[in-house]
């Protein structure tokens, strides 16, 4: 079992005071797989990741990370896992080289200077290695952070919203790098808010209000929901959205700029309602594949209604 899975945790629970922030989360990541960890802000993603890498002790639940017990072997896990925190957490008042050198020392690397030099070269930062880290732009900080958490050649990467606030070009480069690492056999768990990034993952896990709501490939996650979706174009889509929400069979409307998605599980009822509303208007419509975003918005509302915490 420990050979097949990089992460295999079952029934994780964590409370902060009387808040139950992670509820019965079970999660598996195969070796060499990229798992996208999705969910709204405050849904328990960071807490789950911290439990996996031994920074927090779960209140209940068991599991292994690279075959090491997450409760007992946190020292071993830390040695073989690269964890990139949500907030840039290297030292602004150290130079780039000093930061990398510190990390290499912490992991007790035998070829410390060589590893630092290779990393600097790989980043293309050799010339700037004596600059203060605080002076780097957001994109560079993110690249440095990834390189730093890769320095000790971890077998598993836990990346907490690594691309938040990074421009699209840098994000694309970042994902190419992740796929290169994955091809080399490194497992990755990456949390994100971007749907295009979610589509790039091998598997997805969706968490909301502390509960894991869906897990699988993006195709599986979408299919499991059984939503039929139509796209509508033209005219006052915001007004149309309000009207449609009152119609039978329309369970959800989502506005994507110049396009409105209307979804429901009863395809015929949905189509009748849409045709009735759009008849004799400027609106054009067509049936489309349900997107991940439709599914996740649907799931979030569903769990909010169930737990009574949403609006």
């Amino acid at each position, binding site marked *: 079992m420990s050979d097949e899975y990089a992460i295999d945790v079952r029934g994780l629970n964590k409370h902060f005071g009387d808040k139950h922030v992670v509820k019965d989360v079970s999660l598996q990541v195969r070796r060499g797989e990229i798992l996208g960890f999705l969910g709204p802000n405050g849904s328990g993603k960071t807490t789950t990741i911290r439990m996996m890498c031994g920074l927090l002790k779960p209140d209940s639940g068991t599991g292994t990370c690279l075959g090491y017990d997450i409760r007992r072997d946190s*020292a071993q896990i830390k040695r073989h896992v690269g*964890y990139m*925190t949500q907030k840039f*957490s290297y030292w*602004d008042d150290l130079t780039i080289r000093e930061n990398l050198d510190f*990390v290499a020392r912490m992991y007790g690397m035998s070829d410390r200077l060589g590893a630092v030099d290779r990393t600097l070269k790989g980043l293309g930062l050799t010339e700037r290695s004596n600059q203060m880290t605080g002076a780097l732009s957001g994109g560079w900080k993110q690249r440095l952070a990834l390189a730093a958490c890769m320095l000790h050649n971890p077998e598993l990467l836990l990346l907490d919203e690594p691309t938040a606030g990074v421009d699209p070009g840098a994000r694309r480069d970042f994902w190419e790098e992740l796929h290169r690492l994955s091809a080399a056999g490194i497992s990755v768990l990456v949390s994100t808010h971007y749907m295009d990034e979610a589509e790039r993952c091998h598997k997805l896990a969706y968490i909301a209000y502390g509960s894991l709501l869906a897990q699988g490939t993006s195709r599986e996650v979408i299919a499991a929901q059984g939503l039929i979706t139509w796209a509508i174009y033209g005219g006052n889509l915001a007004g149309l959205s309000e009207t449609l929400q009152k119609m039978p069979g329309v369970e959800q409307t989502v506005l994507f700029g110049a396009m409105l998605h209307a979804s429901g599980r009863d395809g015929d009822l949905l189509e009748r309602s849409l045709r009735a509303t759009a008849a004799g208007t400027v609106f054009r419509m067509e049936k489309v594949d349900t997107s991940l975003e439709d599914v996740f918005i649907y799931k979030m509302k569903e769990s909010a209604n169930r737990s009574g915490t949403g609006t």
Partner: protein
Amino acid sequence: MSPLDGFSLSRWWSIILKEFLQLRRDRLTFAMIIGIPIVQLTLFGYAINTDPKHMPTAIIAADRSEMTRTMIATMKTSGYFDIVGELPDEEAGRAALARGEVQFVLNIPAGFTRSVLRGERPALLVEADATDPMATGMALASVNQLVGSVAAKDLTGPLAFLAGGQAPFEVRVHRLYNPEGITQYNIIPGLMGVILTMTMVLMTGLAITRERERGTMENLLAMPAKPIEVMTGKIVPYIAIGLIQSTIIILAARFAFRVPFAGSVVTLYLAVLLFVAANLTVGITMSSLAQSQLQAMQMTFFYFLPNILLSGFMFPFQGMPAWARFIGNLLPLTYFNRLTRGIFLKGNGWWDLWPNIWPLMVFTVVVMAIAVKFYRRTLD
């Protein structure tokens, strides 16, 4: 263009309101705003006394008579001297002064009364621990006036002739340790503890809260480093800084202020290490409690205030009321001040210093236990 152009009263008012809202939520700042004046008022208003009275005084009585009893009673009623006991001989008197157990020793020589009656004008000897000139000055000034009142009370009837003219006996005063009453001799060794308190508590507090505030603590803990390594690793540099600071002060005391150095340098550095350890535990505890660097600074300041005022650094310890001495006895600086002054001026050895060393050890252990308790909590 006038800076008031386009000044909007309502905008201005909303900024004021916002500031008050934030101030009210920032509990610690609010507590400081209220707490500091109250603490200062209490300390300066009630605790601090620049005309200290009730100084512990021991008596070596080799002669007992109506007159010596009157002398002792008069000293008591002056308010400056509290008679705490009798000592067998001069040697015991010196030892009690060296350990700081008493501020004064009144020595009544054998045959004193007979000498007075013979009109030989003998002398009473008062030995004083004059380390802190402020603590002894007023009391010693009062002593010779007391002679007159003793004479007026006891030398009546046939002895009245002794009361007239010159005083029937005199009081000779020995100011030990700081005979010239030079304030610097007292302040400079004391300053060492004050500076160490300030830097040790503040620097460790900031060093640890800074990691937390910037989010780098999480990164540190995600690496294989153990919490104990992180903690101690962050603290050791400040021990070095404490030793450097102490060295600067010792050198300045020696060469710039010419403070006599009667004790052992090794003893002094060991005392410094112990005191640094005590303060580091305070710093660690504060950094566990403080949410931000600002809070750590506020807490340090709050801790620093009673240390300055109640430790005997600025004002004589014995002159304070019992409750203030009680608080002072909880502060490591109180003991360290006695250690540095004892080593510098009195040349105290380990035996004399011990009464002020064990409290520092107890303090360190107790606060360390508190620090460990709170530290665990902040990790999870």
